[in-house]
């Protein structure tokens, strides 16, 4: 039995999410192989071969895979996948985009966002935005899985010495084209990857007041989020939304400012390690999940907190 992991990378560096997937694969047991599909991505394969626990790296270096278009890469993974018992990718946007396509080509179901390995065919995954945890058993011969990074520790990036094997198969479906990319230039980390998040809700009053949170976030190296109420009120754009229909986050520290704590919001952040709530309503439901609650007017408390950190 061998397990194939699809590397998350940008043709230059191996992304950390891959390391969490390696840990999940190690828990399933068996030989762990990593596929690096891209263009000019030798450095990624070198990094993957150094990951502890990996026995082989498959390198598919071809212009057709440069932007990892799902149409092309899925054909490659489906072809390779028949030799494996498990095909795994991190549940990043790239993994979520690719893997269901692979599963359908292999005619198997997929298990999304797995957070726990019980055995080689039984896994746990959150459903209903994390309000329930389902234990599911796959009856398929090949298990196609995406791994939620926050569910598994990262494997050591050093200490391994896997062999690198070139894969020559070229698949170009020719039905999609990469046009361009616009990566956020913000110095702040991306919301789903941030270790600290400062979020504002309806209590912020207006969009300008979010500057208070941005200043605090800059001091903490944090990302800035928002509740749906703040988005619906037009304070901030909806890509900042944390919650059931927004982004699901699990940072080390989540600071909720002027957020009442409606269940849809809690669904997106209640797996955070430490939750701090600042709200002037001491009855607000957010205090029921907060490790540290401060009943205070945010317009006094946030600048003071900013000053004291």
């Amino acid at each position: 039995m061998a397990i194939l992991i699809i590397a998350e990378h940008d043709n230059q560096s191996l992304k950390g999410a891959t390391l969490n997937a390696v840990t999940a694969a190690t828990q399933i047991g068996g030989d762990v192989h990593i596929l690096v599909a891209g263009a000019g991505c030798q450095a990624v394969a070198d990094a993957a071969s150094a990951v502890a626990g990996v026995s082989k790296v498959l390198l598919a270096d071809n212009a057709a895979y440069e932007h990892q278009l799902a149409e092309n890469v899925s054909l490659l993974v489906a072809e390779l996948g028949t030799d494996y018992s498990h095909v795994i990718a991190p549940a990043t946007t790239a993994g979520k985009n690719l893997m269901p396509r692979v599963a359908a080509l292999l005619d198997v179901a997929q298990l999304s966002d797995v957070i726990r390995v019980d055995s080689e065919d039984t896994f746990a995954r959150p459903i209903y935005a994390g309000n329930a945890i389902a234990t599911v058993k796959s009856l398929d011969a090949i298990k196609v899985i995406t791994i939620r990074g926050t569910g598994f520790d990262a494997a050591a990036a050093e200490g391994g010495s896997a062999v690198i094997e070139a894969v020559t198969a070229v698949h170009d479906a020719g039905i999609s084209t990469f046009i361009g990319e616009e990566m956020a230039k913000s110095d702040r980390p991306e919301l789903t990857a941030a270790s600290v998040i400062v979020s504002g809700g309806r209590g912020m009053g207006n969009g300008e007041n979010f500057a208070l949170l941005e200043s605090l976030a800059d001091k903490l190296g944090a990302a800035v989020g928002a509740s749906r109420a703040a988005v619906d009120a037009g304070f901030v754009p909806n890509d900042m939304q944390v919650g059931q229909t927004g982004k699901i986050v699990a940072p080390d520290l989540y600071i909720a400012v002027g957020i009442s704590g409606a269940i849809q919001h809690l669904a997106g952040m209640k797996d955070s390690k430490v939750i701090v709530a600042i709200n002037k309503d001491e009855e607000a439901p957010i205090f029921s999940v907060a490790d540290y609650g401060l009943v205070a007017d945010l317009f006094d408390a946030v600048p003071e907190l900013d000053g004291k950190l």
Partner: protein
Amino acid sequence: MKILVPVKRVIDYNVKVRVKSDNSDVDLSNVKMAMNPFCEIAVEEAVRLKEAGVASEIIAVSIGDKACQEQIRTALALGADRGIQIETESAPDALSAAKLLKAVVQAEQPQLVIMGKQSIDSDNNQTGQMLAALLDYPQATFASEVKVEGDKVQVTREIDGGLQTLELDLPAVITTDLRLNEPRYASLPNIMKAKRKPLDVKTPADLGVEVGNKVTLVAVNPPAERQAGIKVASVSELVDKLKNEAKVV
């Protein structure tokens, strides 16, 4: 062009789900149901494409028991032209849903399928991608902007860390992200008119699809409860706790 919009009936996003006491599943008896929020965004995008003169007909399709006709009627009230219900007793898994939708696509020949990126019950985020794979169509997941130009469509996608723009050959499958649009509300006259729009009922057998489920549900448990926290009296105490007790700053 014709646009197909699959919509799903799910628990209303405001409802807090309860896990059944025997841990067999969540309890959906007597809870409010609604159209999945990402499907609303898909319907809205299709209606906007029709208003812009790009689309000529919008077909809303839903898979499930008779109750899902309610969500099809909602889509019709929002601007879809006709509906198709695929009658199944329980919700099929994503692969079976994709196979059912594939059969509908082959019968109706839409140029675009626009659907939500995930449903808020199973949280799978699979059906659109699987449908695209089965049809050998290109896909654009997590769309935040859609521009149809001739026989191609340009889609901007929300990816980790930014935005990516792709150009797909039509026909194609697009799945919607939150930023794509703000869905409208159905007006009362449109809700009344929607009652008279055509709604076909088909079975998986009509479509020649066998609905299976290769994943069995072993148990459903509530998530771990958080330990009760404490209230601090001042910002200084909060900073002290974060630095010395939680050690997170």
